[in-house]
């Protein structure tokens, strides 16, 4: 890792080039008045789909924000494609698709205007692909952003994060507070957009263990500001063959 490799892009919506970018955290640590994230090392390669799992307050969102270039005050280093994130801001954000916990946008814009606004910032924005995603997710482009339900807002966030085909896709609690049908639909689309073993990297946080089972190939278990375990889902399954992964994860969290 440490280099950016350009390879022919796979997936939907046309052919282009996609940079393969890995993520590396070296001694990454955060200290707030009421929260301390212990120094952690983490390395994620292109093509990996990693779930960061833990209860509320474990430090999942903080870690994801740092990787997405939305956190300034921390110790240690966060690298994308071998480059320090903080020293390459804000340009490096163009390499990242970030789906935040809460939809960020102007409530008075329509869905179409919102996406059109976002497209101005990303040279690789694919308008056709964005349209296709909108149709697929049944998002009416004339709806006002401020009137969208939680589920629709998440869908719109996903389109915004995905339409410029970033090499790194970061999803912060993408399925929390949406119904199971919509959850499965959303995960299916994420699975299609960034298939495991491809050239893109997906990091997502969740406390819904079934989501992890569906999409992740590797799990980082966190609890109260530290990493408990960083393990492949295949290895987890071997611990209790036959048991659902969510159950094994729950046991691991309870043991800690």
């Amino acid at each position, binding site marked *: 890792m440490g280099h950016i490799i350009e390879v022919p892009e796979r997936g939907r919506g046309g052919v282009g080039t996609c940079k393969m970018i890995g993520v590396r955290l070296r001694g990454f640590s955060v200290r707030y008045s009421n929260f301390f994230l212990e120094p952690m090392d983490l390395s994620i390669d292109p093509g990996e789909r990693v779930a960061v799992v833990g209860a509320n307050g474990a430090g999942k969102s903080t870690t994801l*924000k740092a990787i*997405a*270039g*939305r*956190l*300034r*005050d921390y110790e240690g280093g966060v690298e994308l494609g071998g480059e320090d994130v*903080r*020293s390459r*801001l*804000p*340009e*490096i*954000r*163009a390499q990242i698709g*970030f789906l*935040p916990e809460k939809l*960020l*946008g*102007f409530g*008075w814009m329509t869905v179409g205007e919102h996406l059109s*606004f*976002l497209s*101005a*910032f*990303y*040279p690789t924005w694919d308008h056709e692909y964005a349209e296709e995603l909108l149709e697929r997710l049944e998002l009416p482009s004339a709806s006002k952003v401020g009137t969208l339900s939680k589920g629709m807002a998440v869908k719109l966030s996903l389109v915004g994060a995905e339409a410029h085909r970033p090499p790194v896709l970061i999803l912060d609690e993408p399925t929390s507070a949406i119904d199971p049908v919509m959850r499965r639909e959303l995960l299916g689309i994420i699975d299609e957009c960034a298939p495991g073993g491809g050239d893109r990297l997906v990091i997502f946080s969740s406390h819904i263990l079934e989501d992890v089972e569906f999409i992740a190939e590797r799990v980082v278990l966190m609890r109260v500001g530290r990493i408990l375990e960083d393990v492949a889902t295949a290895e987890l399954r071997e611990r209790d063959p036959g048991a659902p992964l969510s159950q094994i994860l729950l046991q691991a969290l309870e043991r800690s």
Partner: protein
Amino acid sequence: MTKQAFRAVVGVEFQRSRQFLMGVGIMFSVATVAVLVLGFGRAGWSAVLSILGISLALQVPLEVAKDKMTGGLELLTTLPLSASTLAAARLTAGTLFSALSALSFAVAAGVAWPGIGADASTVRTIAVSFPVFWITISACCSSALGLALRFKAKTVMTYGFLTVLAAFLTVGYLYERLFGSPLRAIQAIMASDHTLLIATATALVASALVLAGSFLLARKGLEIYEPEPDAMDW
């Protein structure tokens, strides 16, 4: 930072300025109507009520103002957009909008004057002073933002000088018209309609300079600034 992205932010900020001004404008209009209804033709009352009306109009609830000024900022700070460029775009939109608003108001006032009548001098003074104040406030904000953006010292001094001059002339003109000048030496200057024109022109020049500076800054890619990691206050 592409021109396209800069234009997109200016467009959004312009829209937000419009929404903000609509809220402020409604309050301002209500106060103006109150001033006109209560103060018109009652010598001695009109000045007090005018000031009271303007004060009331400026009492925009702080939380509303804050929401309008910071709303959407979180989205903007997640984009590949530096804090300096964001500030420059907001400044450009704000200045542009203020200038256009003031111009519209001046045109409206010009149309309305003949109907108001030549003897309604207080009403006329207040009406004329609105756009001038508007531009002056805009120029003041621009100067402050120029400082925040670390414009070069000479540029900031120029903005500052023009702003202070415009504010002094405008306030002086309004004060003289409403209360009469306590200093006879400057009464002649303040009572002149030319003063108002000079104040307007000065404020407009200040705004135009800031506007031009913002565009130049954006075109140069803000290379004169240190890289700023983020505008978020986590």
